[in-house]
């Protein structure tokens, strides 16, 4: 486990919205299945006293923290209020904040992340699907049915592409320790380096699949930072320059961050890079042959 386990009490901000309500249901169905605590409280300003799927809703994060033991949170509030939600949670003392919200202005994100760092808490996302540690905890929107428990960690800037990879791994009989989507924005809290550091300390994780895409060079930086065996895949070989490919952060700018040069740098560093998603399971097996 890297950011939480069965015993992690989770808070949801934006609990009474359509997304929040829907995913509290799914997260707690998963918690029930694995015998975990799941979502213990929700927050929506002005809706204190209500219940969502039996989960009590509070007006503020501090109110919720008074009544419950909470270590992590998942944010579903709209973009205009999301940075404030991150800061409220950091200020209240929550250790891990998963920000699902997309389209947060990057200046708001920079402020919220700087503030959270000051308060000593980790932000996953924004614009991410969250994380799932099979058999332990689901914090976010990943479809639990595709996952199986095992020793391979997965880190990705994507949502559905991650599910595709997890599906391939599970079908090939390769289970996962934790799967985390770090977000598709240019500025995100936990980057490849941060998550790999957690995976390195996690005895369950023996190897990592690192799924990157065009934009920036944080994949390479991550791969260089760890001793764990890695298989990588980089999306966007066919992405034209200066075009945003769906994610705010997926853009080749000023001739930097294109897929081919990323792949070349990863390979130069000794990291095997798959040309297709369907090649990943076999490459992971090869890693295990070599090391464990």
């Amino acid at each position, binding site marked *: 486990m890297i950011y939480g386990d069965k015993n992690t009490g989770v808070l949801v901000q934006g609990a009474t919205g359509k997304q929040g309500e829907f995913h509290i249901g799914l997260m707690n169905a998963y918690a029930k299945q694995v015998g975990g605590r799941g979502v213990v409280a929700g927050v929506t300003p002005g809706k204190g006293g209500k219940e969502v799927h039996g989960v009590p809703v509070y007006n503020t994060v501090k109110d919720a923290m008074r009544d419950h033991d909470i270590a992590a949170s998942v944010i579903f509030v709209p973009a205009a209020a999301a940075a404030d939600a991150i800061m409220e949670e950091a200020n209240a003392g929550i250790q891990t904040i998963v920000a699902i919200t997309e389209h947060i202005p990057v200046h708001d994100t920079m402020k919220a992340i700087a503030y959270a760092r000051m308060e000593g808490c980790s932000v996953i996302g924004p614009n991410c699907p969250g994380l799932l540690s099979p058999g332990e905890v689901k914090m976010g929107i990943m479809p639990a049915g595709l996952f199986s428990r095992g020793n391979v960690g997965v880190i990705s800037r994507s949502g559905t592409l991650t599910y595709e990879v997890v599906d391939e791994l599970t079908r090939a009989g390769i289970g996962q320790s934790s799967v985390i989507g770090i977000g598709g924005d240019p500025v995100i809290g936990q980057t490849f380096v941060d998550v790999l550091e957690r995976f390195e300390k996690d005895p369950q994780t023996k190897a990592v699949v690192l799924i990157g895409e065009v934009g920036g060079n944080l994949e390479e930086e991550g791969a260089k930072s760890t001793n764990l065996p890695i298989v990588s895949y980089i999306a966007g070989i066919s992405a034209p320059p200066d*075009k945003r490919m769906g994610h705010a952060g997926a853009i080749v700018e000023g001739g930097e961050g294109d897929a081919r040069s990323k792949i070349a740098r990863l390979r130069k560093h000794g990291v095997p890079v798959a040309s297709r998603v369907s090649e990943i399971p076999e490459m992971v097996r090869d890693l295990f042959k070599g090391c464990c």
Partner: protein
Amino acid sequence: MKLREYEAKKIIREYGIPVPAGFLIRSADELSAHIADLGDKFVLKAQVDVGGRGKAGGILMADPATAVATAKELFNKKIKGLPVREILAEQRLEIQHEYYLSITVDRRSKQPLILFTEAGGVDIEITAKEHPEAIRTVIANPLMRDIPPFLLRELIGTAPKEIGTIISKLYRVFLEKDAVLAEINPLVTTPQGVFAADAKIIVDDNALGRQGFTVNRDLSEREREAEKHGFSYVELNGAIGVIGNGAGLTMSTLDLIEFYGGNAANFLDVGGGAESERVMNAVRLVARVPTVKVIVVNLLGGITKCDEVAKGIIAAGISQKVIVRLAGTNEAEGRAMLLEKGYEMLDTMDLVVRKAVEVAA
């Protein structure tokens, strides 16, 4: 969204950064009225939404005698395929030295990065490669409204002190205008003082609304239409249309087309919740791209309802072939609906893409 030079200069002037005297014209005749304000040497700069316009002939020198004819010449040009509708007429500066200044969003530090070099006037990428020691950078704290003086001193070195003030002002522009790039290149010294000879501002697409922009000018017409439906859309020029859910999965579908030797016509991410109407709109939009011969639909997600997707594809009623890969809930129903109408549905990404490449060839 990238602002035009005259828009960027108007903003930085409001923040107290000196810019050359000048005005915008939309026809050559408009030049005559204020021509006296510009002195006897000036420059005409095409305001087109494209980079590298200088080398493409979009910047012309002029004097009062030749001005109107030169402006007409520029209005009749196309710069990298774009018509010239606006020209910025500006006083020509007596440049003594050129500097480069930019503020960007730094992915690694997750904070604003300010870059300054006294070796301006050439391509910044070239300076970065050949003389990295000439480039100075500092990281600013996004929780502070100003750059502390010690950081300014680190940045400017032996350059004139006025430049420190200009950096402070540009930083305010960067913060208050939701910029992802604020650049002055070149920043010049002249006998009359320091000026921003050129300025570039790119506004965060996620902040256009609160900055008062209703339209993203960086998008093509079809891209704008896609945006209205809530799709992310990029047009390419191949024969295989692509519809996926999620940016990463859609990108990797495009990559797979290239892997199997085909060419994608577009990138379209339908986003979350692929209900029938959204899917129908997406299929119709892609089918209208003239180069499209076949469309690949690749949708995966625990909560995607396959019967809804099937309904959308059938309702679109387009003439091109559609090949579908669907995984989610109600898979059997969706498959049956599509099969009944003669659509092909395959189990994996590799299979649909290979089939599409065959059909397109």
